[in-house]
């Protein structure tokens, strides 16, 4: 599967109660690869992700996907920092996005078995999802997001509260999804994770994009003093 969705943000501003949360931003993201949105807490990473996904209103400017907006929304999935579990079983959670988009029953059955296997929850198909551990919940949320084979996957700090093993499982799934052609846009403030996963980086601070570039060169020689300070582990305010 090839992702054909690039996106362009022009003069984008998000304000809430008079204060600017994000922007002004002009940014272009390609249709492939693993983009990591990097920045400290409160930099506007989650807002940027929600704006890209079309679930956050913008005050000014535009978000233009290379395909019509409605089709772009249909081809995207989103994984939240705190995974939202439907009060249903693991299998029913995996089936949910397929059912709401009218996938036939036989295909649903095949896909949920395949994905339960891939996320390591094949033995827990009938367990209530809200009772899973934090790592299992995040894996289930990721499986539920990937089961429709989205062209773009947004992830908001998916490993923020997970231990090393669960983080590795999630990262393996993400790298595989990226290899399979899904464009991934993920926020994090974990530099190690950024090094392991990113093909390109957007560095955000105080709602503004300070640097965009190829991950390797960004990590090795950041151009802006703010990015350099962040990579050095300095506290940015």
């Amino acid at each position: 599967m090839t992702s054909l969705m690039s996106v362009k943000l022009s003069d984008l501003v998000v304000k809430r109660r008079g204060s600017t949360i994000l922007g002004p931003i002009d940014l272009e993201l390609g249709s492939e690869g693993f983009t990591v949105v990097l920045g400290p807490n409160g930099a506007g990473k989650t807002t940027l992700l929600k704006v890209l996904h079309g679930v956050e209103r913008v005050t000014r400017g535009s978000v233009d996907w290379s395909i019509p907006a409605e089709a772009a929304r249909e081809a995207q999935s989103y994984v939240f920092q705190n995974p939202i579990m439907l009060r249903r079983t693991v299998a029913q959670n995996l089936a949910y996005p397929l059912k709401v988009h009218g996938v036939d029953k036989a295909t649903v059955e095949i896909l949920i078995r395949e994905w339960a296997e891939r996320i390591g929850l094949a033995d827990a198909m009938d367990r209530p999802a809200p009772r899973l551990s934090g790592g299992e919940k995040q894996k289930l949320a990721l499986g539920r997001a990937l089961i429709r084979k989205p062209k773009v996957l947004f992830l908001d700090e998916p490993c923020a509260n997970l231990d090393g093993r669960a983080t590795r499982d999630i990262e393996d799934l993400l790298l595989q999804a990226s290899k399979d052609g899904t464009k991934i846009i993920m926020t994090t403030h974990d530099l190690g994770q950024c090094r392991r996963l990113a093909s390109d980086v957007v560095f955000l601070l105080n709602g503004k994009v300070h640097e965009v570039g190829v991950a390797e060169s960004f990590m090795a020689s950041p151009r802006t003093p703010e990015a350099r300070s962040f990579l050095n582990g300095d506290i940015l305010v």
Partner: protein
Amino acid sequence: MNEIWAGLRAAFWLIVTFDADLIEISLRSLRVSLTALLIASAIALPFGTWLAIRRFRHRRLAIATLNALMGLPPVVVGLIVYLLLSRSGPFGVFGLLFTPTAMIIAQVIIITPLIASITHQAMRELWAEYHDLLISLNTSRRQRMLTLIWDGRRTLLTASLAGFGRAIGEVGAIMIVGGNIDHATRVLTTAIALETGKGDFALALGLGFVLIALALAVNFTMHALSKTEREGRW
């Protein structure tokens, strides 16, 4: 104390002898209240859910009004329904006054706001939990409502049971619109009121115990059918 024992004895004999009147009155009580519950739930569950997820002008006013309607005085509801269904009223041509249908109408009016309000409270919490996911999945408004109703079904059962409790124990409105006519509109509550008025406390108490037993039986049955307390559920 003697009267309570006499009531228990009366209730026991009424039940073990399959008293025809008692069975007829009990079945009518159940038919009226369960029908009212079905109709009210069909209106109130989707409405309460819709109110939880929809944002519109004057929404707060609508919620406040709904909550206020929970306290509708049954006697006033009975009076209004009486006026609407009486021969000179706008629906007089249907000849519904002093029929079980009139009693069902009155009960629906009384319990719908109660069920809708409890539903709204429960669905508001569930919607807060599910909001981001369902918006992100690009679900339609109908799909959101169905998801909330399905996943919140156990809480909604509680809302419905609260409505049933109010309906089965209601006396003021159904006395006015039903008329407490023997073999036609007499139900347990109106029969209790009648027997108390006649001074037959033993029979009134007996009917009261039967009413309590019926209400409990319906509650237990609904809980058992929905497996609310089954281990491993959430």
